[in-house]
């Protein structure tokens, strides 16, 4: 019984925290034009982020859509984004981070990719071997494929 009660309290805490972040996003919409966080209407634990590719990177011009699955124990547990390999989303997570700060970290990762933990093996190989141009052209290709509005 006490366990259930504790869980309820914890979920309530995560709801309150998510609601606070939601209000903050509404309030500071212009603060970070590269990030747009949208909350699901029916589920506060489901968020979508629209992230613009940072300038001077092969991702420039693309808008990337990310789905965040927020756990019940948030913020003690990090939000999950699928396959993104980012330290703060795993072992380096801190309850002080917010969804907004996670998005900023992802943008930073796009600007400074880590070849040692690649999602795309080809990208990782290209970067590790030093073929920056190859990596960039490949990234640009994927950006056009996945992050830009299709023509026609």
């Amino acid at each position, binding site marked *: 019984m006490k366990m259930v009660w504790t869980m309820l309290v*914890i979920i309530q805490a995560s709801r*309150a925290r998510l609601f*606070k972040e939601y209000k903050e996003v509404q309030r500071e919409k212009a603060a970070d034009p590269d990030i747009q966080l949208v909350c699901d209407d029916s589920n506060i634990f489901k968020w979508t982020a629209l992230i613009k590719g940072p300038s001077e990177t092969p991702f420039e011009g693309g808008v990337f859509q990310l789905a965040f699955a927020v756990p019940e124990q948030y913020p003690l547990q990090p939000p999950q984004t699928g396959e993104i390999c980012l330290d703060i989303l795993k072992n380096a997570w801190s309850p002080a981070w917010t969804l907004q700060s996670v998005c900023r970290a992802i943008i930073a990762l796009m600007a400074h990719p880590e070849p040692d933990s690649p999602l795309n093996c080809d990208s990782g190989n290209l970067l590790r071997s030093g073929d920056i141009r190859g990596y960039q052209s490949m990234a640009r290709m994927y950006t056009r494929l996945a992050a830009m509005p299709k023509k026609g």
Partner: protein
Amino acid sequence: MGFDSISNSSSPLPPFSKDLAKKKRTNRSARLKQSKLDVRREQWLSQVKNKGCEVDSSGRGGSPPSCMQIPHMQNRLVETSEMRSREEENDNSSIHDSDLESLLNSPVGSSLDSNASRKDHPRSSSSTSSDCCSRSLSEEEEDDGCLDDWEAVADALGINDNQQNPISEPPVKPEARIGSADTELPKRSSGVDLLKTESGGVVPISQMNSRAWRPDDALRPQSLPNLSKQCTFPMNSERHCHRAIPWAWKSTISQPSSCPICCEDLDLTDSSFLPCTCGFRLCLFCHKRILEADGRCPGCRKQYDPIHGDVGFNTGATPFKIGRSCSMISRS
């Protein structure tokens, strides 16, 4: 010169010796009066400096405020001094010669000499180089003739006799200051002595105001570093662990009113709880949850101390430590 004028003005052809004796007596009495005057002035200056030092944030020894206060005195005294100086002009001239001889040794004489010279030989006022000199100008005006009036004024001001400087010092002062003082030599020498006396006068003041500026003091100089950054360093608040102090610090530090983890309001116990040296504040409930899971501080990612979980409570002068885990943890 002066000698001749005396001989002319006073009784016709007095004996030389008598005249000389009279001159000497006058000289001695004038010197005594001058010394007394200088002592009084020194006291008054110290008092003015006290008031000036408290106001003057740049720590320049309060000379500007004293300069401000002096002019109104100066105006009043100048009038009386001019009146008296006319009367005493003869006396001043009479001792002109003897004073010239002792000019270098006794600055007193030079002041009287300056009086005479000013009346008889108007000179361009020498540069009142420093603010001290400007102040001295006023003193000189007071000096000039209204010795008795000055004393009355000094008494009226209620000078504190405890600040009386040795007689030897004051005579060194005024002369040089006296902005219009003719001779450069005594001015220079007494300029140095002036600083000495000023510094001597300032020392007690600085001792009075030896405490550091409070962070909320409106007069605190802007050049001093901003203490708000230091205030957020938790070690400070831990050192001053009194019940009242956290409230005082709250006014200067921006403490969260709600827990950043669960968004619940921080109550008294939570506000005085400081689990980590980085200063990250959170409620006890979240702290307990973190200890059960990760155990690291959300702010700096350092491991929490699970045994002494309540080491940061401000419950007195020394942190309250218990051997076992805190009540919150044990209750679960």
